[in-house]
């Protein structure tokens, strides 16, 4: 029931893509420096799969991405609640947050390279900072949208501060946290790839740019496909995770 995706309409929907790839394969003149045939993509990927480069890069990209996202999630929720429940801090940091939001995340990379050098910790820091904003801003909005009635009823129940946070505030802001994380995930993937491309560090972006520098176009296209698949899997996992977290949301009226 859940995986009803794979049915006739899915097959029809994916047909143009498959036909395009077949035409490409059929009409291309072999190992072109610009548009290599899909079969050459496979060969190129097979080669880097065999010498272990593919697995290494994939692992490096995925773990740094997850580490960065974890840090930004924890930090974003923590700071978001702190700023959100405090009207004074919120007012004073309004423009500052606005400016940082307007700053395209990729420009953090050169700053981090200068300050921290080429290292995994630099990479994770950049991913964490770039993905922090959507989460932080959504949490702040979420906190300020918690109804006064909810807070008042919690107060009249004389809940402790801890219960107030864990049992009232946190469940109430959960949907906006998840919204922020959903925005942060594709952004994080982009930033991870971009750092690897700019610095040539180990990772999918790194081998992609290396392929481009060596005019190994088949490798570039092959990794493009792999990046797409990784992106799809991460999206699918995040949707499943989201559903399991929000299965009681919105609360049913009794």
């Amino acid at each position, binding site marked *: 029931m859940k995986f009803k995706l794979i049915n006739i*309409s*899915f097959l*029809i*929907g*994916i*047909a*143009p*893509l498959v036909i395009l790839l077949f035409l490409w394969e059929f009409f291309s003149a072999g190992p072109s*420096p*610009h548009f290599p045939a899909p079969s050459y993509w496979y060969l190129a990927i097979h080669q880097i799969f065999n010498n272990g480069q593919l697995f290494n890069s994939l692992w490096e990209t995925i773990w740094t991405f997850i580490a960065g996202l974890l840090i930004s999630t924890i930090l974003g929720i923590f700071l978001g609640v702190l700023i959100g429940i405090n009207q004074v801090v919120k*007012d*004073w*940091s*309004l*423009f*500052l947050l*606005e*400016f*940082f*939001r*307007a*700053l*395209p*995340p*990729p*420009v953090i*990379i*050169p*700053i981090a*390279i*200068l*300050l921290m050098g080429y290292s995994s910790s630099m990479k994770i820091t950049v991913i964490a900072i770039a993905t922090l*904003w*959507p989460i932080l*801003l959504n949490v702040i909005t979420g906190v300020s949208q918690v109804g006064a009635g909810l807070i008042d009823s919690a107060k009249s129940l004389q809940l402790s501060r801890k219960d107030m946070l864990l049992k009232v505030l946190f469940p109430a802001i959960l949907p906006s946290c998840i919204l922020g994380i959903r*925005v942060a995930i*594709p*952004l994080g*993937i*982009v930033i991870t*790839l*971009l750092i690897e*491309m*700019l610095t040539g560090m180990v990772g999918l*972006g790194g081998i*992609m*740019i290396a*392929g*481009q520098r060596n*005019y190994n*176009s088949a490798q*570039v*296209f092959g*990794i*493009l496909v792999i*990046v*797409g698949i990784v*992106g*799809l899997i991460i*999206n699918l996992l995040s949707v499943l995770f989201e559903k399991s977290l929000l299965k009681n949301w919105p609360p049913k009226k009794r």
Partner: protein
Amino acid sequence: MSKFLKGISGIFIFILLWELFISSGLIYFEYLPPPTKIINSWLILLAKKQYWLEIFHTLFAATLGWSIASMLGICLGIMLGVSKKIRALFLTTIEILRPLPGVAFAPVGLLLFGFSLSMELTVICLPTLWPILINTMFGISNLSNKLDEVVETLHLSPSEAILKVYFPAAATSILVGLRISLSLAIVMAVVAEMIGNPEGLGYAIIREQQAMNPTNMFAYIITVGLIGALINYLLSTIARIILPGQFLRKDVFQAI
């Protein structure tokens, strides 16, 4: 104190703290200059013609790429939105291609076009196409069936139906897509310049970083941020004028 004043003073406090921490030596990074030095080299940059040319190049590339993506996106979006059959045929393919990160096309663009404006336009167009296409498509396909009946009763030709009925009805949704895409286009222009096309603000940032010249680098980064904030402000003002009463999300740079 008004909200505006508080917001402004927040920025000043941040700058002041930064200045204090650096000049007192409490925080020390070899390449983290204090704000006074950044402002100093920024003022020098402001007087240079090259600085303005770099800003112009980035804005030009972003708008050009955005215009191409808009035309493509609106045309394809109308086609997909009007015809249920075409939608059924292509929707899955679009859903598979859409999450492909825009940067991943940078090496492909480099292979095809080398270090050039075309490469930059490729990197800008592909990711900016999706918000426009999707918003146009769903803007039209989500319209009520009554409009189809109107088209039938009035015996409108397909082109008339699109121009006079579907397009105006979906205009709000299309504008939202256009707006998300424009901000995205500027980010992608900077990214493309960082990786490939050696012109514009993105390249300037990387150039100053590689020259170990952090004051200029920070000045360029602040420029990019200010342009982004300005465009966000302009777009939300325009959107409020054109579409009064519409709920529009403010965050646009988050959509890469």
